[in-house]
């Protein structure tokens, strides 16, 4: 297990190092799909330069990173490439240590119908999942581009990966700390609070009933841990620059979306052509969209918090205000974990084609719009829309496949109606 992992790491590091030294690095780091106003490396350098000149980096509208990033890169700015490679491998290491679902299967084996043996995953299969996840993450072109562009999205991803590791390992304290760090970094991981809580409750064998006291107790504990660490981290960042400037610059920026540079998200086009009068309303609508799906998903997926976490990650990276391909790469790394759902996926071929074609068309249409002048923003937004639709359909496909498998697990693989004829399972 260690040897293939090391090989993968070596290949990934070589690939990134080769790309860093080539001329592609400059080209990639300017792509809007990879570098958003929140995560661009140029802005980090600018902010640190401003700091050296004695000006607060938050005084303009350039720098939107948190103070901890300032602290991290202040000393490591010459070694930036190494930092990103290390964070990528940190990611990888945490993924590789996650052993999903092992306990759950053993517990619930007796609940399943007899003929679903083929649906259950064998330990052999499960053994290779970490390697596959590692491969998916490190060699994903999205991750490579994001790393070469030195986008701080990689750091986001690392923190979220550590959070997932801590949650799966069952340590409420560490998971709360990492979740607080992830929320502090970019606001949206606060929605991962629900799946993490559900998982930890499940792990402690606390049933999820509103009336049970132990449920509330644990929830309060976890929430308290999370909120305290968040407050501590925010207060600590105050002491870096002795000002609260970073709060409107970071969180105000994420929530109010003032910068409308095109990216692979859904916000920019809408707000570029909207009247001022309505912009507050639509900002609220769009932001609620990100946070809202947590509730129905929590209700539906309360027995399956890991899948919930995956879906939630995907929703964050689709609906967040400044997505980049690095965010997409994060949830795509988890796809091998659900490779057993493959037989239930209905549209996987079309969706993978859509995603690949859209990714290839992004630079083409950008060139046509910005440089050739023969296209306009509608073209680029069309591709963005298609890409996001592809992602949404991918997630919903996996969701459907997951639910279907669960149904089969409890009701048997060959469904029969009351009169004995074969039945089909339909999603209503």
């Amino acid at each position, binding site marked *: 297990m260690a040897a293939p992992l090391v090989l993968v790491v070596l290949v990934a590091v070589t690939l990134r190092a080769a790309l860093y030294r080539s001329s592609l690095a400059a080209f990639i780091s300017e792509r809007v799909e990879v570098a958003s106003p929140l995560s661009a490396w140029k802005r980090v350098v600018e902010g640190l330069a401003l*700091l*050296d*000149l*004695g000006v607060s980096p938050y005084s303009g509208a350039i720098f939107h990173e948190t103070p*901890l990033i*300032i*602290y991290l890169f*202040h000393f490591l700015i010459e070694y930036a490439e190494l930092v990103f490679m290390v964070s990528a491998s940190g990611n990888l290491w945490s993924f590789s*240590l996650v052993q999903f679902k092992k306990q759950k299967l053993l517990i619930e084996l007796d609940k399943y119908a007899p003929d679903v043996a083929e649906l259950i995953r064998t330990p052999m299969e499960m053994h290779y999942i970490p390697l596959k996840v590692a491969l998916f993450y490190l060699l994903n072109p999205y991750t490579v581009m994001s790393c070469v562009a030195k986008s701080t999205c990689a750091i986001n991803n690392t923190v979220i990966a550590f959070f997932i590791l801590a949650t799966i*390992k*069952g*340590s409420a*304290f*560490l998971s709360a*700390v990492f979740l607080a760090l992830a929320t502090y970094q970019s606001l949206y991981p606060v929605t991962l609070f629900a799946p993490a809580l559900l998982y930890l409750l499940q792990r402690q064998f606390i049933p999820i009933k509103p009336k049970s006291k132990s449920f509330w107790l644990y929830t309060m504990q976890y929430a308290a841990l999370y909120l305290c660490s968040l407050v*501590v981290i925010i207060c*600590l960042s105050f*002491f*870096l620059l*002795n000002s609260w400037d970073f709060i409107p610059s970071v969180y105000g920026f994420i929530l109010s979306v003032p910068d409308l540079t095109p990216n692979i998200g859904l916000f920019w086009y809408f707000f570029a052509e909207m009247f001022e009068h309505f912009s507050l309303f639509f900002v609220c609508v769009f932001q609620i969209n990100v946070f809202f799906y947590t509730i129905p998903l929590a209700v539906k997926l309360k027995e399956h918090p890991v899948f919930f976490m995956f879906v939630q990650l995907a929703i964050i990276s689709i609906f967040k205000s400044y997505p980049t391909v690095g965010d997409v790469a994060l949830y795509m790394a988890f796809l091998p974990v659900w490779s057993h759902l493959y037989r239930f996926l209905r549209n996987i071929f079309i969706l993978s084609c859509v995603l690949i074609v859209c990714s290839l068309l992004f630079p083409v249409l950008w060139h046509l719009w910005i440089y050739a002048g023969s296209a306009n923003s509608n073209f680029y937004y069309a591709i963005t829309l298609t890409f996001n639709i592809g992602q949404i359909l991918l997630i919903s496909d996996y969701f459907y496949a997951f639910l279907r498998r669960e149904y089969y697990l409890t009701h048997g693989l060959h469904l029969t109606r009351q009169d004995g004829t074969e039945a089909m399972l339909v999603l209503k």
Partner: protein
Amino acid sequence: MAAALSAAALLLGCCGAALASGVQDQAEQFFRSGHTNNWAVLVCTSRFWFNYRHVANTLSVYRSVKRLGIPDSHIVLMLADDMACNPRNPKPATVFSHKNMELNVYGDDVEVDYRSYEVTVENFLRVLTGRIPPSTPRSKRLLSDDRSNILIYMTGHGGNGFLKFQDSEEITNVELADAFEQMWQKRRYNELLFIIDTCQGASMYERFYSPNIMALASSQVGEDSLSHQPDLGIGVHLMDRYTFYVLEFLEEIHPASQTNMNDLFQVCPKSLCVSTPGHRTDLFQRDPQNVLITDFFGSVRKVEITTETISLDRDLAGFENELPKDELATEPLKYADQLPVAQIIHQKPKQKDWHPPGGFILGLWALIIMVFFKTYGIKHMKHIF
């Protein structure tokens, strides 16, 4: 220039010959004003038939200036020039400046240098500062030097701080002041007289900061300049009040007049002009009492004819200090202080390295260590290490 040189030569000869001091006194008068040539820039910034009076204003001043000796080659005349041949003009090819069509200021020999759409803010500023494309003909250039006295007359529609050009753009008082400063720094004038006849004209000279500028305006800030008289035959007002009275005043000037600027300041009192004319002399080095009208409005060549033989003397040193002291500024004029370039280019930016405050580092690492020790005790962490 040649006249001045010959005058200087004569003077030297006179000094050197140590003749009667009468010649000496007369010689000193030669250099009283310090200029050797005169230029005029006359600008009418309006177009359209109903702004007839602005064109008539400008052309009247042009006539007076030509009469007093400034040749066309030293006049830059900028007009929209759509009056004389305007279809609404009942007397084509004429522009009258007085009721009853007494005075046709257009005539046969008017030379308009910038006409119609060429009268723009950009061209005006280029003329003043001399930053003209190389293909511009001589007649369109202001080829003044540091011994030139320039008369600048502007008329049109204006407001507080700006002057409207051709109904589509404006020039502000700041731009004008900066243009004059450029002229000063490039030694393009010796003294400058700026006359403006527009509404709120005094605002245009408020911002001047270059030396040797005298300015007159037809109205103060907040007042409108009014027009003088309509002509029922032509159907429009023919002139503005201020310029009308200035021209009446100038009609009495001839090249040998000794009338000075203080008289010009008295022209057109409030009873006649309705608006209050203003003037500004604080930037001017000489006392307006000693400034002749012909120093600006005419081109008076100073020639002294003598029948005595004069031998030229090489000794110039004594002569150069003989400048009348009461009329010069107490401190010698110098061109604007250049930036301390030597100091700037050798200055390195101060490298102040920012360090995160100690409290922050301490707090952060304390937290990290606390988290580490808290989890270290938990059983499953052992698997990681």
